[in-house]
């Protein structure tokens, strides 16, 4: 079971900040996860495919290879705006 996190406007679209999602064996990349979500919710899929969206896996900020497994935490981050 993968744990998905949605932040900012993505949480509004996903209807919540967290969601648990069992990943089929064929779904082993971030792109495939987005495709899976898009198949259920077109609007959310489009938002996740925006160029400004970043993905952080298991809270590793330094490298994001895009490979995921069923036990990962997968965070989707829209464009940031601090200060």
């Amino acid at each position, binding site marked *: 079971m993968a744990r998905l*996190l949605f*932040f*900012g*406007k993505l949480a509004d679209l996903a209807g919540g900040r967290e969601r648990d999602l069992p990943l089929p064996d064929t779904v082993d990349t971030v792109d495939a996860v987005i495709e899976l979500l898009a198949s259920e919710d077109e609007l959310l899929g489009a938002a996740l495919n925006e160029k400004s969206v970043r993905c*952080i896996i298991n*809270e590793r*900020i*330094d490298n994001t290879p895009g490979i995921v497994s069923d036990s990962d935490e997968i*965070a989707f*981050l*829209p*464009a*940031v*705006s*601090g*200060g």
Partner: protein
Amino acid sequence: MICVCDTPFDPGHELKAFENKADAAGAIVSFLGRVRPEANDDPVKALHLEHFPGVTQKSIEAFAVQACQRWPITQHLIIHRVGMLAPGEPIVFVCVGAAHRREAFEAADFLMDYLKTKAIFWKKEIRDSGARWVEPRGQDHVDTQRWSSK
């Protein structure tokens, strides 16, 4: 020191504490960013700031390490509020101590550009007319790019 906090803080008090700690610094530059009060028909009533707990702090620490590698700064402090903020409340406070003023100015400026455009925060403006997520201004990105050519 880096602190992402969900309760109000007092910049004057923080500056005083910083001075006491940074006792070898001849120059201290601080930046305070606040929720701008607006004088129009539909002003911002509140700002909601979201972060990625743990990860936001870690990523700011990585920026701060860059600043320490680029400039001989003796001490730094970054406080960033999250949660619900009222107009006028402090959002971000950055303090940099160094031997001379040029490096203190540049490092504080650098940290702020990064905090504005790269640090992991999301900002929602709440008005009578509704709420909307804010994206960084174009100018903020231009400011940040100044540092990559140096």
